[in-house]
């Protein structure tokens, strides 16, 4: 391929990246240094917006909530996703049907899925979960207003929505593990757990890392699930970083675009910090190939 052909082929991608990635990123950083409203050029205020965000206890609470949720969801979707993938992988003729059913929660838009999910816990709309808990004498859980019941409900919903993705990726990984290695481990006397921990999991480490990276990026941006699930988020400390940004920059005609931009910049920083271990591993593996 000539240099000219190379540039002709790569130019559209560069233009798209410039328009959809670099320009918005530049504007976000620019606005983070301004007091700016919609449609106005804004006034330069230096680091005032950063000071405002970093001294706001509500932002600190949203970071703690979001990072905690991210870590828990990431761990659960990897563990449960792996178990599900193993179970699905061992299915015979039923595998396509089961796989299709399992994927439904992944393709439902978050806000729709979360609304339906909220009805399970809302007595006003049926409240199946409350009904079941009532059989066991637990009938006074305030899922939407009390902090920890609400957090559990949110985590369950995010896990429900993300589990199929994890299962799908890990299933692909499982199907790529050579049968010979598994057979050899069996002959060497490996038990079921040993086979998984010492043979299969090390073989699909890259896939596990990929699931972790995507989970971190997705859950750190969690937003639309919280509209139906966490209507009291500000009061009970269950406001995610993205919801905090929305509340500041958009809700009820809010116009703090500078502050919203600061939160976006800080979110990218948090995301990069959380991704460092996984990115290092990925880079190491790429170098070793």
């Amino acid at each position, binding site marked *: 391929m000539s240099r000219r052909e190379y540039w002709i082929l790569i130019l559209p991608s560069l233009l798209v990246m410039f328009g959809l990635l670099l320009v918005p990123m530049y504007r976000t950083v620019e606005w983070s240094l301004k007091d700016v409203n919609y449609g106005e050029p804004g006034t330069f205020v230096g680091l005032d917006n950063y000071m405002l965000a970093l001294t706001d206890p509500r932002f600190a609470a949203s970071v703690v909530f979001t990072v905690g949720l991210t870590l828990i969801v990431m761990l659960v979707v990897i563990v449960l996703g792996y178990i599900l993938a193993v179970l699905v992988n061992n299915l015979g003729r039923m595998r396509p049907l089961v796989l299709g059913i399992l994927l439904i929660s992944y393709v439902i838009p978050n806000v*729709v899925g979360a609304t339906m999910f909220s009805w399970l816990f809302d007595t006003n709309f049926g409240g199946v979960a409350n009904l079941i808990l009532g059989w066991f004498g637990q009938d006074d859980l305030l899922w939407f207003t009390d902090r920890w019941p609400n957090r559990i409900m949110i985590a369950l919903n995010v896990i429900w929505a993300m589990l199929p993705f994890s299962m799908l990726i890990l299933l692909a990984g499982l199907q790529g593990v050579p049968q010979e290695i598994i057979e050899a481990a069996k002959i060497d006397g490996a038990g079921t757990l040993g086979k998984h921990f010492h043979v299969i999991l090390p073989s699909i480490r890259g896939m596990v890392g990929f699931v972790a990276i995507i989970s971190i990026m997705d859950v750190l941006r969690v937003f639309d699930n919280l509209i139906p699930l966490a209507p*009291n988020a500000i009061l009970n400390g269950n406001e995610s970083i993205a919801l905090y940004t929305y509340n500041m920059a958009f809700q009820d005609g809010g116009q703090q675009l500078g502050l919203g931009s600061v939160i976006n910049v800080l979110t990218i920083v948090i995301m990069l910090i959380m991704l460092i271990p996984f990115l290092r591993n990925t880079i190491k593996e790429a170098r070793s190939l």
Partner: protein
Amino acid sequence: MFHRSSTKAAVAASIGATMLVSGCGAGSRSADQTAPEVACDFEAPSSPTTVNVLAYNSSAIDPFTNALVANCSKDDVSVVHEPVDFAGQVQRTTTTLAGSSGTYDIIETYGMIIPENAETERLIPLDDLVEQHSAQYGLDELNPQMIEAMSYEGSLYALPMQAQVFVMAYRTDIFDDLGLEPPTTFDELGDVAQEIQDQGEMSYPLALPLHTSSDLLTAYDSALGSLGVDLVDHEAQTPNFDQPEAIQAFEALLELRPFLDPQVTTFDQPAVQQQMYNGSAAISIMFSGRMNDLVQEGNSQYFDDIGFAAPPVVGDGEYQYSALSVDGWSIPANTDVDDELLFHMIASSVGEDSSEAAIPDAYPAREGIVTEENSPYADAANDAIGSAPPVEPHPYIPRVGNAILPIIAQVFNGDLTPEDGAERMQDDAQDVLDAE
């Protein structure tokens, strides 16, 4: 790798589920099927024109939007309205009015946002157009109170289409069984709720929309307004939360807490409607546009047991616990479409025929057309509309509201005392006013 059959099944299931979900969630784009046939006369533009309408979907707004879309789409003019909820409408209004060119040509506005957008010249004053075409569309029959709510500093910025005012709905079967009368004061409301609760049939007989996103602010403002006090002393440019009524309004709402669902701060108006539908509450107070739904047989088994009354007063206040919210059509200053053409459209939408067709879902802006014969809640709404606290048409009111809402929620949640809450509200609201 996946087996081919597994992949196919998974893809098929994904596509099927996506289509199912998107179909359910898309909303109707052809809501004009039930629209009334009304004249929408305008001089045809020289080139094909698309008129984009921004209006949220609700049973009270839809009749007017439908009339606009169904009757004004002709002669190379296409009127487009995409379904959107109220929160989406609020955001889109802010963004479309912000720049030198916007996405929408007709915007459904309401009293709260008129002053700010009028002051910044983002909406076109309609006085000249009204004067020119008043006779053609009978615009002199529009309610003066609603005209006032759509005006700022003497100029009209939206043609009022309909008003929402608080109305009380109650279960006539329960009230009759217990020999109760509809309450006219908050004290009586508490007594009636206590009586129903004591019977043991309902744990939380009272249903109010007190969602922390904005309903709670409206509730507090309504309680304060019922006591005759505005949020702000507009002459002195100081908030009124240092007045004794600011604490009294909190106490009035907090005294109702035992009769409300413990999670009431998550209940918006649809959730309150649901409480009435499923019989978990016996009394509710919400905007009038929600009332007709309560007497629809398809919605609830209690449809025949619903009575309506004006909302009670707080203390011995002059006004009822209420809020008057008027919706109207505005023309954004940044539209490229001819103002005259747009005015004909919005005027036809609020004409007599359209307005009559909107009853009983809406309380149209025309005087005297809502009667006991055509609307089940007419008497209650007619009483309530004349006794609502006056609106506060000032550009800074939405920003004051945004500043105090979290504090109101903390007081209502028991995290702050009414005294501490009022003090903080005074400080935060003063900061907003000082920044003006």
